[in-house]
């Protein structure tokens, strides 16, 4: 495509099917404690 560059291949919707195992880190266990940022956490099952 000439007018657009897509930065990612992932689709959040696909993660709804295989996700939700609950084993990943709670956001406040990283460095938060006064805010909430979830998107910067890692998936426990990411290769």
């Amino acid at each position: 495509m000439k007018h657009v560059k897509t930065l990612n291949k992932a689709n959040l919707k696909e993660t709804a099917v295989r996700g939700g195992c609950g084993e990943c880190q709670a956001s406040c266990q990283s460095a938060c404690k006064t805010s909430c940022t979830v998107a910067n956490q890692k998936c426990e099952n990411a290769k």
Partner: protein
Amino acid sequence: MIHCYQMNGYNIILDVHSGGVHVVDELFYRLAQELEPPLPEACPPTLVEKYAAYGREAVEETYGEILELYREGSLYSPDDYAAFADRMVLSPIKAMCLHISHDCNLRCEYCFAGTGDFGTGHRMEMPLEVGKKAIDFLIEKSENRRNLELDFFGGEPLMNFEVVKEIVRYARQREKECGKNFRFTITTNGTLLTDDRIDFINREMHNVVLSVDGRKEINDRVRHRVDGSGSYDAFLPKFQKLVERRGDGQYYVRGTFTKYNLDFAEDVLHLNRCGFDQISVEPVVADPKLPYALTEADLPAIFAEYERLAKMLIQRRREHTGFNFFHFMIDLDQGPCVIKRLRGCGAGNEYCAVTPDGDVYPCHQFVGQEEWKMGDIFSGRLDMEMKRRFAASNVYGKEECRDCWAKFYCSGGCNANNHTYAGDIMRPYHLACELEKKRVECAIMIKAALADRTDETGETIPCDQDCAACVK
């Protein structure tokens, strides 16, 4: 829903419900904002007319690309997630903030923990028996979860370090018996670190959070010792030693910025110059009447500083001298699943705080507010009505979050801040929302800039940097 913004010369379109991120040219950027699904097969003549200055062929070609992404499901993708909201039910408790000490040897002005005692009026350390009971409680309440997280928190945890060591020993024994995996974190001001303690922490703690605000004068203005003197010189060399000996283990130097240092990027750079490459510097959360508090009036300056920091990070990564800034970390391909993003922080449902007395609260920030006490570790009983309320405080439970473009990044925000500053855990705290949105925009822009290197065939040149600085 799409979110379109321009930053640092990039036109960026985020497709909210697929997570797709597109860097586009000016014509695409303009056309995308004109359209709403469902898209027709052919480019609407009104668009060809309106954007005639670009030429019919270019408009139709660009429309064709928009249509292709739409068909692929990465532009204007529908919101199908309400169906998953019913999965936001009671969960096992798998993370605990253990208040090992309700006392501290510092008197930081902005401390949300009331300089250690959480406003309770009595300073105390957690007895070992309470700590062991908390481990039993967590194992029992975690049901089928294997990975259990426990943060030694305070106050200052090093004031009760012998108990920390004994609790770790006990948990290691219990995890073998129960098939669990404990991941410990310790959050410390570092003043009481010794070589032995550093070795223990580096051996046993999955993560370490080291509190420092940045430049000495900035740190010492708000992070005082009990006698009013600054704390910087008492901990910085110890932090450097800990990190030097830690190898690849997870850690963050973690600071707070206030109205006193709206040039906080300088503090981030200072921390990097001190030898730290995993850095978090967060906005203070405080009553707007306090002199150091951030208010809506500070937003333009903070936004400009976040952008300045983002541009500096891009430059540093290109020069192979990058570092990691916690709030700009984003993984567009392998981040958390959408179920996690819907659930948010998990406070009061899968995360809780335990006081030195053994009382249970939804999280560390609710400690000391008696009406939020949800149980105790001795009886094992929990206020299930309160737990259900927190389980429901997900993105789709919060009316104002449901239609926000950033909902899958902040996941509904901090419930404690929502309660304290917006009056309800279900109502977002707008100042925090604005800051979070800006940080997400910066984080995505950094990705766009780092992908903006192409070879002669137009293919992206992958970053050849193999270091912890890269946002994974």
